[in-house]
């Protein structure tokens, strides 16, 4: 058992941190980047590509770095720290992860290479209006048309969907839920602002041309569930980074802001609340870290994702809200960062399943184990 980064991992973390600190040195800088489409920094994205970050989890022969969940997790945590708007989790871990898991050798080479070098942005078009984190597609349907396929239906929200060069789209077929590739500009995409200042799109398919991802005729529900779980764990790490920064932002504010002639840090009730934020942070961090390591050890990703999500979502709401409340009015303004942390944490803990969703999953599986043993290898439960 070992919770320390090795020297390569530490170097990666430092490099990513430096890059992001430069890019998002101020709230103003982040707002400026988000003011214009696509809602994230194209330059920063390319810099991340140059650093190898966008190819982290992929094999070297498709242009990747062949790193594991630990590296992916530490990058996510760094992104979270400055609430960077780049869609690393959605494009690399989720859409890229699906291409990697399901795609043919040619598709993997073409798409993951482009993803890794920053030339091809992938998006995952899966959520449908009214759906609640189901791993299967319901209303979007795919039909054979000639050699290829045609998609019909609506996906929303699709994170960075209007910017994506290629969309990975889930759709119903006779085989169940299959995955398809659609060239971004072939789809009707209406972009909108997201809660955290980013962009998502409503993507409408009206007989839109598509290629099947991987072999045709195979139900991909499980593959989607697995990829979402891996992305969820990375999002949890991103949330941990954001919570840590939100806490320290608050602590610094308490130390410097004066009211009634003294700094806020002299008020015991506020200090205690900061202490409770720290407790929540550390519990969430432990669980998110564990989920990462469990992935690394080949454990049950779905169980780990739900466990991390329940803990992180609780902490995120608590820490996000308290960061705003302890700051007071200033945190309500877009010019100050505390509120943006609250908003980003909301997105990170809702995009891939909220707390109730994950808790219900755990609650429905209580009788499968006597207790949870975090050190059990492969499975968390005994």
């Amino acid at each position, binding site marked *: 058992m070992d919770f320390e980064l090795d020297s390569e991992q530490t170097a990666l973390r430092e490099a990513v941190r430096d890059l992001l600190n430069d890019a998002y040195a101020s709230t103003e800088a982040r707002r400026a980047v988000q003011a214009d489409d696509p809602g994230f920094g194209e330059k920063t994205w390319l810099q991340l590509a140059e650093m190898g970050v966008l190819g982290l989890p992929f094999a070297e022969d498709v242009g990747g770095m062949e790193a594991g969940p630990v590296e992916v997790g530490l990058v996510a945590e760094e992104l979270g720290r400055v609430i960077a708007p780049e869609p690393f989790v959605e494009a690399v871990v989720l859409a890229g992860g699906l291409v990697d898991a399901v795609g043919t050798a040619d598709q993997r080479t073409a798409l993951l290479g482009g993803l890794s070098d920053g030339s091809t942005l992938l998006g995952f078009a899966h959520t449908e*209006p009214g759906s609640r984190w189901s791993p299967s597609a319901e209303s979007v349907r795919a039909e054979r048309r000639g050699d290829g396929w045609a998609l019909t239906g609506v996906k929303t929200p699709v994170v960075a969907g209007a910017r994506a060069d290629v969309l990975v789209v889930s759709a119903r077929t006779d085989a169940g839920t299959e995955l398809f590739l659609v060239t971004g500009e072939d789809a009707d995409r209406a972009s909108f602002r997201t809660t955290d200042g980013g962009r998502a799109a*409503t993507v409408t398919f009206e007989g839109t041309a598509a290629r099947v991802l991987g072999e045709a005729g195979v139900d991909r529900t499980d593959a989607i569930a697995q990829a979402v779980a891996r992305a969820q764990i990375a999002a949890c790490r991103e949330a941990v980074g954001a919570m840590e920064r939100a806490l320290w932002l608050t602590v610094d504010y308490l130390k410097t802001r004066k009211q009634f002639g003294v700094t806020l840090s002299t008020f015991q009730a506020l200090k205690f609340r900061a202490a409770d934020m720290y407790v929540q942070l550390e519990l969430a961090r432990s669980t998110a870290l564990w989920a990462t390591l469990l992935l690394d050890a080949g454990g049950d990703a779905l169980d780990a994702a739900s466990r991390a999500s329940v803990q992180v979502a609780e902490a995120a709401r608590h820490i996000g809200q308290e960061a705003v409340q302890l700051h007071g009015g200033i945190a309500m303004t877009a010019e100050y960062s505390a509120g943006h942390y609250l*908003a980003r944490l*909301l997105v990170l803990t809702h995009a891939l399943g*909220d707390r109730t969703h994950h808790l219900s999953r755990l609650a429905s599986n209580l009788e499968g184990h006597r207790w949870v043993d975090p050190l059990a290898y492969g499975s968390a439960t005994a």
Partner: protein
Amino acid sequence: MRLRLSEDDAAFREEMREFFTTQVPSEIRESFAQGREHSKDDIVAAQRILNAAGIAVPAWPAEWGGRDWSPLRRHIWLEEMRFANVPPPLSFNASMIGPVIAAFGSQELKERFLPATANLDIWWSQGFSEPDAGSDLASLRTTAVRDGDEYVVNGQKTWTTLGQHGDWIFTLVRTDPQAPKRQMGISLLLVDMTSPGVTVRPIELIDGSFEVNEVWFDQVRVPVENLVGEEGQGWTYAKFLLGNERVGVAPVASIKRALADAKRIAATGGPGGSSLLDDPLVAARIAELENRLLALELTALRVVANSDEGKPHPASSVLKLNGTETQQAVTELLVDLAGPAALALGDGDGAQGLPHWAAHASPRYLNMRKASIYGGSNEIQRTIIAGTILGL
């Protein structure tokens, strides 16, 4: 002890309900029911309708349009209004500066301002908070220096809600920097916002809305007759202004409607139009909120029923504290009901395909975090409860 309203009060409730649902145009009410904020025009239009009927400023002295209603009736009046989605009279006018001018202003000030204030011919803004004085109001730094028949005002105010619409602003200023205590030496001035040297800058909030403003005073010259009451008594007037209302502290009817909407939405908001109420965790959460709200409403009713006129009731702090927490909890519920659609920040642009309520869930949630900060933060309310009620 008796639960039901007296016959007279019940009749009053009917009368109010009838008035609000028939005399205020449905466009105004519908727009709000759909989840949009009231526009300036709606607020002005509604207040003028109420004022024409003599029910815009019931808490004022009778000679200036007040109605001498019991606190219970004022409660009923306000709750029925909120329930009917009618924008309540602008609080800066009706609950804040109006009563202060009526209580402390000269006859000339009253005649000059009260009718226009009741009719919303003047849109008042509040100039209390400053960048370095949030909850600690007494540390304000904006100065007003007497120069002949005028004060020269310099300084900065912030958190001026809806100040972008303001015609006039009532402002706390320091007229005597040498006063032995910080609370002394503060005066209350009425300032025409079109005066040279007044600058208003709307502040963007985290939900993308513009509600509050910064207001700068740069050598703004204000006639001395715009002083309310006596110089140096501003702190007293401010406390009167902030503390004299125990009716409507918690917007029970608004929360009730929001929660009822949430329940209705949940009943068909699941995948394929299924009911989210079939999820026992969702159902329990809604039942819990309905019950919390019931407890809050009953507590508000106890406060107005046992009201001792004139004295700020310390239980107001209970209502403010619990009311904001309950209100916030309903916005959290809606975010969770919205599911993945909670990613949208409103239903503009490409989000038009999302249900209106779902697309607005997150911005409302973010916006409503203000409720426990503005108007005396919940920490201030706890301090009041501990101090005034518990003697701690």
